[in-house]
């Protein structure tokens, strides 16, 4: 579409560059944030933004929760049982806060969506729902919604530790085109340990489908970090040419998020095959 006004583009890029540089500076001296000092980005919101976030009646993410409730009570699979036949709705409180958790059969941690598919296979004899499909996200959102506001507390499980180590190492390394590793980025975006936003739409005034933490991780890992370099590029381009046609590329979303997500999941060890 139309290009951003040039002066605005310059300013945006300059601001972004400054932000990126300050991140590098803080990242160089920074170490991991102690667990007690981690904050949800909810705590950084202005009162107005919080009011929007708190209002379920205007949150399009709640559609997924409603859909999930419908699917939860729907009989499915060869055995024709619903999720609710085994679990009662209330019993799922706190469950989502304990995932990813180790699965004995898979010999690795599984996240909530995988866990739901495992249940479909074992208890319902139903076909697994495709990853990130509307139905699977809705079911996960319905379950996660019941743990809202609870602290994410992974079980103390020896079998999890190699995966946690790999995840920690992954996040410390600057990769791809990125100029700073994940913890430095999260220091500014303020990703914390609360579940409140995990399955909620963060940029919730738009109309994208519901988001989930894995995709956000992939997006941060892939798009967010590379954006800064793209910004530098477009900034230089703009300085070279007074007739820049478009400077929107630097904030573009990756087109093939799925494969990047799979690569990411493979890198942190949540998937056995890439």
């Amino acid at each position: 579409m139309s290009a951003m006004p040039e002066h605005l583009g310059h300013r945006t890029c300059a601001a972004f560059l400054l932000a990126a540089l300050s991140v590098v500076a803080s990242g160089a001296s920074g170490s991991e944030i102690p667990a007690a000092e981690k904050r949800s980005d909810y705590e950084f919101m202005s009162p107005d933004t919080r009011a929007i976030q708190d209002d379920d009646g205007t949150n399009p993410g709640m559609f997924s929760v409603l859909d999930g409730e419908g699917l939860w009570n729907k009989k499915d699979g060869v055995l024709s049982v619903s999720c609710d036949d085994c679990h009662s709705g209330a019993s799922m409180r706190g469950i989502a806060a304990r995932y990813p958790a180790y699965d004995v059969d898979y010999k690795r941690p599984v996240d909530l969506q995988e866990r739901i598919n495992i249940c479909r296979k074992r208890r319902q004899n139903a076909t697994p729902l495709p990853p990130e499909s509307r139905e699977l996200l809705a079911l996960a959102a319905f379950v996660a919604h019941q743990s809202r506001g609870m602290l994410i507390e992974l079980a103390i499980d020896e079998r999890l530790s190699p995966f946690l180590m790999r995840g920690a190492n992954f996040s410390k390394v600057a990769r791809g085109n990125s100029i700073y590793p994940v913890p430095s980025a999260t220091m500014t975006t303020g990703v914390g340990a609360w579940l409140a936003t995990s399955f909620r739409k963060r940029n919730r005034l738009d109309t994208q489908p519901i988001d989930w933490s894995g995709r956000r991780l992939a997006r941060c890992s892939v798009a967010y970090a590379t954006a800064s370099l793209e910004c530098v590029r477009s900034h230089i381009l703009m300085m070279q040419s007074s007739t820049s046609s478009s400077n929107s590329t630097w904030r573009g979303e990756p087109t093939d998020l799925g494969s990047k997500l799979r690569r990411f999941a493979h890198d942190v060890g949540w998937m056995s095959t890439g």
Partner: protein
Amino acid sequence: MARALINVPRKARRGEIIEIKTLLSHPMETGYRRDNMGNLISRDIISRFVCVYNGTEVFQADLFPAVAANPFLSFFTVATESGTFEFRWTDDHGNTQTAQANIEVA
């Protein structure tokens, strides 16, 4: 399957001005976009919204292709008596979705 979020105060004083918020899940396809193959995606929008309070129409709206997906409408009315709000969304093809909410007026 419930696809509308309605926010009506459960209780209100007689004569109180109350805010009603409605959010409907709908793609609001404009008819101007093209798919990956370059074919026009046919228009599919909610074109009309009506709110009826105990049989009396208190709010109506015409919607157009410029309205974003998941149309959100917020409006005010006066709580006159206990009863029911009925909400009706009608799309281009004449299909309607409805929702209800009760209010207690003291």
